[in-house]
């Protein structure tokens, strides 16, 4: 069995956001996309730290875009997911899916676990 180096939860969210946004993906839009869809507050530092890690792993690529006045004359950095990143995302989601398979329906499974654990008095 080949060893799969799975992505972390936040890395999955970031890669999925890159796929959704396509060429419009940069810091502000990625952060907003994750906040909107995952209902999760994201700090800009956590996002850039993750993007830089993904770039080191060669799952994403970046390029510096144009400077605009609403950014105080500073440039944007656009990110795009690479084929390796997409393959890794698929692997991670598949691994997650196989772990969750058969656990349906959730409430029943959780109820079974609660009764299976003996209560020590």
């Amino acid at each position: 069995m080949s060893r799969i180096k799975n992505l972390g939860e936040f890395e999955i969210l970031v890669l999925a956001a890159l796929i959704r946004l396509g060429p419009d993906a940069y810091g502000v839009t990625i952060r907003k996309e994750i906040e909107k869809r995952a209902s999760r507050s994201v700090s800009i530092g956590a996002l850039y730290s993750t993007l830089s890690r993904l770039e080191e792993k060669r799952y994403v690529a970046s390029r510096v875009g144009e400077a605009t006045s609403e950014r105080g004359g500073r440039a944007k950095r656009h990110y795009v997911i690479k084929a390796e990143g997409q393959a890794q995302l698929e692997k991670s989601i598949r691994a997650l899916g196989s772990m969750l398979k058969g656990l349906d329906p959730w409430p029943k499974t959780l109820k079974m676990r609660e009764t299976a654990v003996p209560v020590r008095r």
Partner: protein
Amino acid sequence: MAKDTEDARNRSTSTPLGSPKVARALLAFIMDAADKAVLIGDLEEEFRLLSRHSQRNAQSWYWHQIMRSAPHLILKRLRSLKMQQLGLALAALLSAFLLIYYWDIWVARSAARTFSAMTNASSYFFSRAVYLLVQMVGVAIGGGLIAIFTFRAEMPFFKNIACRLAPAGLIVFAPTFLAMINPADNYPLSFRLLWLSLAVPSLIGGARGGVWLQSRRS
């Protein structure tokens, strides 16, 4: 309701506030040069959007972002430090530490004793002066070593002093400071002040010398 009215009044009457300068400076300090402009640009863009509705909320959002981002950015910066650079910095600290202390024990004290013996002078003042003078030569060499191994050529000299020499100097001289404030050692206050006022320029002078040597070598 009252807050909304106040914000509306702010929008209509006052000039728009910029993003918090202190927060921006803090961010610039902890970030590496490569990402600084992009990240500050992102924050600026969102800040401007938010400040259209409420300047106060925009300012607090900005600070909140900085506070939450700082740990991630510091960790990222530490990860990006090359192990070789870290090793060199530690080697410089250790050698400066050893040099200054052995210089003190072997060279500075011996020089003071030899001076007293040669001049046959029993003057406490002159032997202390020779001791201090020779000790400061050691401090300057220590400063030079720290500069050669830790200073970055692309940084201005005074930024190197603030970010590298000052913390390194504090580490190297911490035991000396502690010894000097120890009442058991019975150093007079004037000697402590004199030592400090000589050590700081000696360290910076040594660092300047180290930078000069390095520029000549390259």
